[in-house]
């Protein structure tokens, strides 16, 4: 009893933080979303998502976020697997190497991509030096997707790596004892047991990718309008906080729906989980 009291006491700062910095602003946003600039009630800020411009940028955001997530997953799983199977004592150091770029300012890392991908950039210099035709990547959707993959990859690697680390080696050995080859062990044991990590990874990449606007600002050259950019511009350029809030709410609903789908996937398979 005392223990429980003590722990809940320790949670107070966090609860206060959540209340002031999460719950309260949420209500503010909701308040803005359902009123006109003059202050009367309206649903038009929410239904504004049906506007062709908003709809097409939302659709583009979903596509970019989806492709980003898939690429991250395809890249991250093998990396996490290799990392897990490394036969060195100091795995922490290798994990540290993956986190290291995140210590540098995010804007700087994205600006570096500008220099690499630009028409006269590092990539094209290399291509023309070895006699290949140059490519036009910067300020396209491809550049935005690349920037997001680069930025969000660690968020996919780490949860998968954690999930893999938790798998009891004896389970793998048992599979081998019973005659399963590497592929069968991988598909029947490793993947199902790392499902939790995969799902958190997907959520941690998909959701920020869906609402991001900084990457498309820097690598999209004003030509790639994601829903995040629309919301940002409503707050700054168009000074329509009500519309911006309304679209934010819609975006949150999309995030919640995609997360509940992921959760359902998670729960329905829980029954078969080992350990």
């Amino acid at each position: 009893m005392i223990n429980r009291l003590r722990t809940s006491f320790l949670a107070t700062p966090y609860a206060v933080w959540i209340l002031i910095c999460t719950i309260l602003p949420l209500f503010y946003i909701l308040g803005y979303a359902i009123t006109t600039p003059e202050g009367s009630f309206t649903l038009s800020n929410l239904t504004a998502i049906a506007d062709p411009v908003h709809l097409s940028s939302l659709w583009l955001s979903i596509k970019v976020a989806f492709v980003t997530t898939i690429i991250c997953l395809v890249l991250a799983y093998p990396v996490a697997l290799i990392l897990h199977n490394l036969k060195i004592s100091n795995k922490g150091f290798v994990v540290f190497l993956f986190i290291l770029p995140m210590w540098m300012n995010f804007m700087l890392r994205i600006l570096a991509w500008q220099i690499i991908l630009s028409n006269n950039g590092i990539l094209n210099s290399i291509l023309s030096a070895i006699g290949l035709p140059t490519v036009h990547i910067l300020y396209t959707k491809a550049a935005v997707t690349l920037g997001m993959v680069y930025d969000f990859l660690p968020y996919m690697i780490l949860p998968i790596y954690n999930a893999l680390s938790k798998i009891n080696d004896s389970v793998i050995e048992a599979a081998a004892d019973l005659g399963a080859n590497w592929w069968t062990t991988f598909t029947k044991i490793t993947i199902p047991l790392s499902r939790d990590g995969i799902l958190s990874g997907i959520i941690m990449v998909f959701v920020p990718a869906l609402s991001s606007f900084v990457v498309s600002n820097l690598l999209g050259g004003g030509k790639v309008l994601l829903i995040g950019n629309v919301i940002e511009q409503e707050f700054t350029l168009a000074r329509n906080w009500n519309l911006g809030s309304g679209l934010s709410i819609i975006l949150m609903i999309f995030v919640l729906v995609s997360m509940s789908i992921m959760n359902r996937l998670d729960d329905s398979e829980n029954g078969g989980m080992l350990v």
Partner: protein
Amino acid sequence: MKKKAIILLNIFTVLLANCFFLTGCGSDAESTDTLVVLNYGKYIEADVLKRFEKETGIKVKYEEYESVEDMYAKYKAGSINYDVICTSDYMIETMRNEGELIPIDYNSLPNYKNIDPAIIEASEAFDPSHKYTVPYFYGTVGILYNTKMVDEETVSSWKSLWDPAYKNQIVMINSQRDAFMVAQEVLGYDINTTNKEQLDDTFNLLCDEKQYVYAYLQDETYECMISEDAAMAVCYSGEAAMGMEYNEDLAYTVPKEGGNLWIDSWFVPRTCKHYDAAMKWIDFMCEEEAATENFEYVWYATPNMEVAKHEDEETLADETVFPTKETLERCKLYEAYDNDTLDYTTTLWKKLKAY
């Protein structure tokens, strides 16, 4: 399930962080004796700012913005009481119409005599009886191009920005008003038109251009041109002059159809809490030495007549920095849009970006 709840909360925090960055600028400057100044980015020599603080003993909280619209949004957000602001002609007109400006006490500005009367006269387009503003810099909008890739003849018309030969080599200006101006000059329309059909034509022409555009940029334009990532760019004259400093192959022109002359001026908004300090600030900006230092940093045309004493003939004859009479005759100032037109063009601009 708890883990999921934590992830959920994290995600909300991420989403909300976006909102916080936009609105969370503190209001710590209000209570103290600091002068709150709002100006365009890269628009003052840092040393001038330091010298002002040293010589007057007034502390300055100096804030910057990128586009006129950003400035207005920052001002309207109301969380900071700005004392003195520098911005462009048509926005000053908008804010004057809204009653946001406080008249300037010209008698308390001994250095005001340094300002070119011709520019003061031109300012009357947005400040009719000249009560509210002091000019800071002026310039034009034109094409900065790389002479190795484009010849002078081609860029003598705005139409060159629609030339398929330069696909992915064109940098368009990331500012609604200036981009619309370019298309309106091509179409032969008035750059201040509020006719919806003409605005629609402008929009359609810009949509047609988008396939050739490398990027819509503003503050990054000259870096992009220096590194020769693009062949031509629509930009402001000072930005062009700065680019030409670093790359000898760059040149600047205001195409024959005509363009925009803009004047950026200081004014005092209604939120001003330190009027005397604001006057000292404006006067300091008109001072010979400060104006010279600022000019040598930003490379826009200065209305300060005393600066000429410190510059060599080559600089003074530079047509990029100081537009010629013929150029100025082709150029017009923007007039402020009414609210209806403003909303309409903002929507068109958004549609263009999503196109």
